[in-house]
């Protein structure tokens, strides 16, 4: 009888394999000292790189204002999934800050697809998510490549089978401090409340200790 009972359990388990939450949430772990984001070793400096901003009157490079932070994202506007998800998450996380905190955080979006992202397209797209963000683009791939590499990111644009460009890019959002150091990065899917919590700690002066050895933050989830 014990075996029959076991079989019944097995059979009913087979019926119940439709857990709607089966896909695990991306929790952004990678954790540097309890931060949702991660930090690289050694800490990268991006003070020597720049991509021109679309609006030339405001081109501060990627170094944050004194006491502030810059959030830098490399994306492209025809991206229907990853980029808008990330920019929406950023918008939501920034909305959780106090006005005083929010005023110390700047956002920069750099296109990795300048051929399709004209200045007008780029600023319209970015502005729809974050009206005060600074848009950056360059037609000089060497300049773009140097900037992305300095952040530890990567991208590629190549012709797909249908002739349309296929763009790949690192989906992380980087946090740069007023010394031009990348003090934290959030992988794609880091929830907005976690981003907001990290921002508050960073704005309060906390910094994650660099992770000792790993170069692949968080490992496989």
């Amino acid at each position, binding site marked *: 009888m014990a075996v029959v009972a076991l079989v019944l359990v097995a059979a009913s388990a087979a019926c119940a394999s439709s857990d709607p939450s089966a896909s695990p949430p991306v929790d952004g772990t990678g954790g540097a000292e309890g931060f949702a984001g991660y930090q690289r070793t050694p800490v990268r400096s991006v003070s020597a790189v720049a991509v021109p901003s679309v609006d030339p009157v405001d081109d501060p490079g990627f170094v944050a204002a004194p006491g502030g932070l810059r959030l830098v994202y490399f994306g492209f506007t025809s991206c229907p999934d990853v980029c808008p998800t990330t920019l929406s998450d950023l918008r939501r996380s920034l909305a959780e800050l106090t006005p005083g905190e929010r005023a110390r955080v700047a956002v920069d979006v750099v296109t990795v697809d300048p051929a399709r992202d004209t200045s007008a397209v780029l600023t319209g797209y970015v502005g729809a998510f974050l009206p005060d963000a600074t848009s950056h683009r360059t037609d000089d791939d060497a300049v773009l490549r140097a900037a992305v590499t300095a952040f530890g990111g990567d991208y590629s644009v190549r012709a797909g089978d249908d002739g349309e460009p296929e763009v*790949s890019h690192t989906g992380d959002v980087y946090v740069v401090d007023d010394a031009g150091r990348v003090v934290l990065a959030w992988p794609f899917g880091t929830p907005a409340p976690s981003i907001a919590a990290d921002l508050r700690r960073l704005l309060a002066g906390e910094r994650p200790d660099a992770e000792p050895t790993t170069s692949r933050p968080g490992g496989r989830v």
Partner: protein
Amino acid sequence: MNRPAPHAFLVGAVALLAVLLPACGSDEPAEAPPDGSTSRTTPAVVDPWVRVAAAGGNSAAYLTLTASGGGDALVSVSVPTDVAAEAQLHETTGGMDGMDGMDGMDGMDGMDGMDGDHSSGMMSMQQVQEIQVPAGGSVSLEPGGFHVMILDLARDLSEGQTVPVTLTFASGASTTVDAEVRAG
């Protein structure tokens, strides 16, 4: 020696499973006739939504498909031409958990390789031919994974609007749902 007894139980167990498993509801043939007949249960569409986007740009639709009965596969998707030029099934790969998105990425001569000093992985997007809905299970189209890519919007998609999205399955069945436009 009482050895044969477990075997007997095992045989009984297998027989019992054979009887019980079909009771899960998958009593329909694996390959239903592609005649669009409604006798087959079309996967249920849960919480369909579309992301806010501007005319001329792209957007994405997300939803969950649940098959209470037999499995099926989502094979095509469409939106009215007054919404967008085209809709396709896509999957985003890569990201934090590895280099999945790096597969087959030739032509990247400028890269200095995956020397461990690179990012946590590039993300890319591919068109897929179908999205399987397992029998008695579900599949989610969600940010960072499977999604409906909506290309070349004919008009702005604003919060509060709805967009009719037609889903066609391998079984031949199709259904149209009103997806709510959200800021995402």
